[in-house]
């Protein structure tokens, strides 16, 4: 068994905790995350309310826990959209002749040049602000990075002798794509997915902060941050808890991505 690298372990643990928190929140939270109790507005952290309460008297810890569901949902949808479109596009671009490939990649650049948040805000304006529309928009904006990474990986696979051998054995192009190219770029897909996951989490927080993401009353880390604005000096903890949660989640997925990359790419490991 190879020694596990620290970023893979740290990333895995952080992501694991977030997933666990989301799962636990389905069956138990300290309080109902949406229960309003005006008698305890802006309570300081205490044994009853570990992270205190917000301006409506809602329990902050419960909101953070329930909010992690939004965060994961966001990541899964955005990465799913990006992978389902980006991976086939990247493989296609690697397999077709030069000019169609150029066309795909230049169209890809066009989407890449378009700011992701702007796209999400446009989607929100047209289809109505919801977590799902925001995430589909973020997903579409993440397609180009998937397509690029997968294309370069697929180009390498296409140059290998086993693809030549598969062609020499009479395999047609599409079965080669599915049987030979796709399985050999799965490590790239995994790495890119965890990096895109981090970007999506951050994007959802930003959109919710701007009011284009998750609408109330569903708890979301980004919106908690926005609601804490007016108390930034009187009760900074209201900004600190969701802010730290976002930062840790992004860090966790990035570390996981780095760790996976090191693990899958032995050449990088040798260099250290």
């Amino acid at each position: 068994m190879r020694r596990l690298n620290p970023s893979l372990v740290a990333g895995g643990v952080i992501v694991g905790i977030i997933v666990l928190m989301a799962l636990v929140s389905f069956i138990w939270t300290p309080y109902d995350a949406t229960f309003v109790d005006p008698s305890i507005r802006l309570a300081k952290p205490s044994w009853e309310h570990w992270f205190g309460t917000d301006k409506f008297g809602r329990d902050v810890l419960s909101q953070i826990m329930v909010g992690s569901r939004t965060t994961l949902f966001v990541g899964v949808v955005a990465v799913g959209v990006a992978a389902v479109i980006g991976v086939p596009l990247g493989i296609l671009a690697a397999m077709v002749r030069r000019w169609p490939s150029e066309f795909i990649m230049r169209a890809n650049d066009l989407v890449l040049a378009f700011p992701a948040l702007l796209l999400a805000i446009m989607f929100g304006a047209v289809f109505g602000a919801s977590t799902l529309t925001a995430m589909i928009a973020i997903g579409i904006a993440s397609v180009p990075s998937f397509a690029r990474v997968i294309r370069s990986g697929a180009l390498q696979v296409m140059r290998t002798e086993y693809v030549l051998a598969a062609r020499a054995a009479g395999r047609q192009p599409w079965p080669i794509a599915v049987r030979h190219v796709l399985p050999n770029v799965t490590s790239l897909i995994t790495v890119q997915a965890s990096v895109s996951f981090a970007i999506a989490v951050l994007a959802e927080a930003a959109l919710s902060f701007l009011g284009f993401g998750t609408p109330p009353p569903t708890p979301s880390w980004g919106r908690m941050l926005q609601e804490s604005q007016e108390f930034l000096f009187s009760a900074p903890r209201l900004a600190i808890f969701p802010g730290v949660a976002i930062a840790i989640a992004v860090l966790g997925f990035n570390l996981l991505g780095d760790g996976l990359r090191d693990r899958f790419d032995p050449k990088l490991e040798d260099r250290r």
Partner: protein
Amino acid sequence: MSDVLTVQGLTVTVRDKTLVSEVDLTVGPGERVGLIGESGSGKSLTALSVLGLLPEDVVASGSVRLTGVDHDLIGADERRMSRVRGRELAMVFQEPMTALNPTMRIGDQIAEAMLIHRTRPGRGAARSAALELLERVQLPSDLMRAYPHQLSGGQRQRIVLALALANDPALLICDEPSTALDVTVQALVLDLIVKGVVARSSALLFITHDLAVVATVCERVLVMYGGRVVESGPVGEVFTNPRHRYTQGLLAASDLDTADRRLPTIRGNVPAAGQFPSGCVFRTRCPHATDICAGTPEWTGPVADGFACHHPAEPVSSPRLPAGGAHA
């Protein structure tokens, strides 16, 4: 019986450079033909042209006919070629370490070779046929579930051979199949190749730069230099009585019976692809070259046994002229 493979006037170009020009070659049924030459002489390109697997901007022209296939292989579309490849025509590549898909089990890869062409009725039949093939190449049956990285180079090359022979091809092309292996494994792999083609009465086109290997495996040999076939004939005749000056130099450089003197070499280097001289391609390195070598030498003798040289070596079995000997 007609020839299994007939190549006529095969020319391979990339942009304005000619890499292979006017190659004629035939392989008879069950015949084992060697194709020898230095790196860059166009051996592998010739093989890839036959399979239609040249890179995108490399273009082949001429004619390649295979017995049992009713169309020319040059210019055939991918769909038609994919029916021929792996079925009538199979190939073993040089590098066994990369010729197998690292994400697929060995058994699945061999079975797949048969399922592509539906030469076995179903997955079960293909698997039992794969097991039998594994046995034929002297590998244990528990390798069926192994992944390529668990195997050594020699084992992998035997798997690649099993894959190539799975559909009993009319012609097997081997491109330096033993070059990447160590000597003991080499002998085993070569033996398995010969046994495999003999058992199926398949023809063999064997590409190598190793003259000793050609001598053990092949019955007939073609010598390539600078993208042209410069000499051809039965192995025994070409090796004992070379006519083309390049063949002569190649044999002298491989002669290990040189205890008391330096190993003779062919002076100079193989020119870069597409940079060969006009006329006789060997004239810039040939000790016998004269002015008439600027003209393309005519082919002397039948296609299967002849040479193309303005100053051929004497057809005698007495001791050869010393290299660099008196000539004009």
